[in-house]
């Protein structure tokens, strides 16, 4: 179950994402030259500590000043705490992601990090980057294994387990970026 698509029938292809540990995910983020983070409509799910997925996403982004794209109205709140953010609709983001010349800051992006998305929607959208965005690596920090990225966390149906994972990513990344 750990590395099977969370929803049955969502195994799309021959190549599926490599399962990564929280530490490995943090290393991928730390090593990226110009990552960006895309936060979806399920980012407001509250975790056992009272923090939400969006709060961890912002913490991760802050460590490396990763530009954030938020797809929903939570952008109003994100703007208050993190300047390097903007709002864009998910479909339009993907249309831009498959264009190797598109970027947010004048340099090509080499990693797109996804977190807080509707599983069935993002799974299909990610088939577009998988097939048509060879210039880009993709990493899913969502709660469920996402086959259509390059790197994905394993399935973590229990929220407390997922929260521990997110904390580990934050802490490991902090350590890695601090030493760079």
């Amino acid at each position, binding site marked *: 179950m750990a590395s099977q698509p*969370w*929803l*049955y029938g969502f195994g*799309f*292809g*021959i*190549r599926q994402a490599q399962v990564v540990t929280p530490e490995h995910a943090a290393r991928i983020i730390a090593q990226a030259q110009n990552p960006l983070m895309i936060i*979806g*409509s399920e980012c407001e799910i509250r975790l056992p500590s009272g923090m939400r997925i969006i709060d961890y996403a912002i913490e991760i982004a802050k460590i490396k000043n990763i530009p954030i794209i938020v*797809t*929903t*109205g939570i*952008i*109003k709140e994100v*703007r208050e705490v993190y300047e390097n953010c*903007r*709002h*864009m*609709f*998910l*479909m*339009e983001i*993907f*249309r831009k992601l*498959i264009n190797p010349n598109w970027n947010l800051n004048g340099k090509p992006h080499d990693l797109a990090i996804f977190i807080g998305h*509707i*599983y*069935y*929607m993002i799974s*299909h*959208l990610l*088939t*577009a980057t998988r*097939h*048509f965005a060879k210039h880009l690596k993709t990493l899913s920090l969502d709660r469920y294994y996402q086959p259509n990225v390059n790197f994905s966390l394993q399935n973590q*149906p229990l929220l407390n387990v997922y929260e521990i994972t997110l904390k580990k990513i934050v802490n490991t990344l902090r350590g890695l970026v601090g030493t760079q």
Partner: protein
Amino acid sequence: MKRNLRFRIDESSIGMLSLKDLEVTIEEVVREVQGPTPMPTLGTLRRWDMILLNRYRPFYMPACDYCCLCTYGKCDLSEGKRGACGIDIRTQQARIVALACAIGAATHCAHARHLVEFLIHKYGRDHKLDLGPEINIVAPNTMLVTGIVPKTLGDLEKALEYVEREITKALCSIHTGQEGYYLDYESKALHIGMLDHVAMEVADIAQIAALNFPKGEEEQPFVELGLGLIDYTKATILCIGHNVSDGAEIVEYLDKSGLKKIDLVEIAGLCCTAHDISRHTHGESKIIGPISHQLKYIRMGFADTIVIDEQCINIKVVEEARKVMSPVIACTDKVMHGLPDLTDLPADEIVKLLASGKYPGAAILDEEKVGEVAVKLALRMAVIRGKYKKIPTLEELKKEVERCVRCHSCRRNCPQDLPISDAIYELKKGNPDLLRKVAEYCLGCGRCEDACPRQIPIISLMIAVLERELPNERYRIRIGRGPIRDTEIRAVGRDIVLGQIPGVIALVGCANWPRGARENAIMAREFARRGFIVVATGCAAMAIGMMKDEEGRTPYEEFGDAFDRGCILNIGSCVANAHISGALIKIANIFAGRNIIGNYEEIADYILNRVGACGIAWGAMSQKAASIATGFNRLGVPVIVGPHGVKYRRMLLGDEEDYERWLAIDMRTGKRIYVGPAPQHLIYSAETLEECMVMAVKLCIRPSDTPQGRAIKLAHYIDLYKKFYGKLPPDLHLFIRSEADIPVTYKQEVLEYLREVGWKPWEYISTDVTLVDRIYEKYRGGKKSTE
């Protein structure tokens, strides 16, 4: 064709002459010439398609890396590889899109064929297609595409023959080793979508004319809607599907036999057949709801007889009906569900056989016999099966819940990814709240139950937790009014084209909603309050009716049903979608005087550039929805689908930053000028309700907007975007041609923003543009040439 002028003099005197009750009709015979493309074949409108596809490029989401359509394969098409036949991943996606559209269009076409043959058999080939005194353009899609101006039921057969021929050709192109370029498959998909609108129109105008449906009149009566429509005292016939022929025969049998007067039998419908029976009975039947209510209602056991016709029928219907001893009658040879064909037996014998339980149901391929058997059987079964008519209670199902081990199989099989396992676990602990919430979003497909290793009846549990609420699930919806009248188009066409009515929003499609039915009602209300014209069909039209305001009114009770600013219209069933495209075509004809006969490219170009309209298929699920949307796209109408819509695997998206894509020909000078990204996309999947509303408003922007019209549209765009996302839209400057376009209420803020982004007024603005050289040539210099 004719245009009528009518006037009436109640009482008047001129000199010696006195007049009383004089009604005069002047028929102006307008000679419309045959346009350049009557009955276009697969390649005829390819040039128009390529214009669209150059601007709105296909964005593919390959749902499968393989092609498995022939025995060469499976062929792996990933990483740039090609199949054994040579196909690549893009072409394969476009091919599957074309295939989905072909399935959808064929379904409507076969539906139309059945109806037309049935109605010709009953009423004769010469039965007039009379849609009332205010509708002279009876069949705008048929006229536009085929060049035929149908007058009788018999004439519709010619249109259907054309559609059938073209669908067969399009389907043939999908065979291995045929079409080889993705944009050509996209062109074929657009062609098939266009055909679908002809097929739908044929079906609906045939049934309107022959079965006495409403003919576009306003203030249609209300009909009851909802799962709570439970009447223990009557025999209930539940009709599921889309084809009204059998439902109409049931109604006729009740009339003829005198049973209607006794009022012992109730006809309830599920899915589009419910709309059409209510149109036929003018509100004397009931609508249980959309397709998502199907399993739930069957399991509640209130159907004494279930009649299935065609489309959107749950494949488990016979199995489910058997559990509650409801016999099933299948009425078309397309949908027989393994049931014995008892058509040749006398009606009473069929009733006896089915009531005995010997068979779970029967196929009866004779509409008249279906009418008689359904009524007699329901009356008989109502006596026999009283114990099944009850909502299951939690107490009864308590033991079932205990078996849950929280393995998550239910959730992982749920198309919505609903937290069913958590909800059952909570229920096990005595808290039904989460399951109640899950039930609200549930599509009623039953996949969770099939996946459960402990066979827990999850759908029954959802019904049980709502046991107390279900009887209150009763709403009111207006019956489907059918076409938009020519007089209505005359009244509002100008305001739509100039932008003073901000747009026509069509809420259509199936019940695969991401967060329950309510979102349709929320959108309909919001748009109507903002002065849009909201039209609705199918399951979406039902969903709009399934939410009450503080005063207990549904949106249909709150707003009028004229084709006018701030109204919400139930147009009817799926096939009534053709009246929405038809209304847009009629705007080009009635307001702008464009010939519509066999003149597709010109009218589509007109609609794309001038008619602010946007479809929303928030729960689009079926292949029919794919072909309907694609037909709208070819006609120049953008469509938004919900998050599940990405599973159609292809969107048509514009790139707002690519200047070249937004050039058009100025009709005055012939120069290619920038018109801005309007409309920005042709088919687009939105993640959330908020995004959908913002995008729909934006997709109503057209180059033809006057400054006042553009300012109105931008005011809505800014207002909604700011409300949901807190700032001015980041692409706002692309839609402002001059300062006159800026909404007064946001003037200062927008001017400041424009300064920040370095906006400059456009050098040249034209509201009269085309994408087609031929059309400029035709109207060069503002004068119509002799073409």
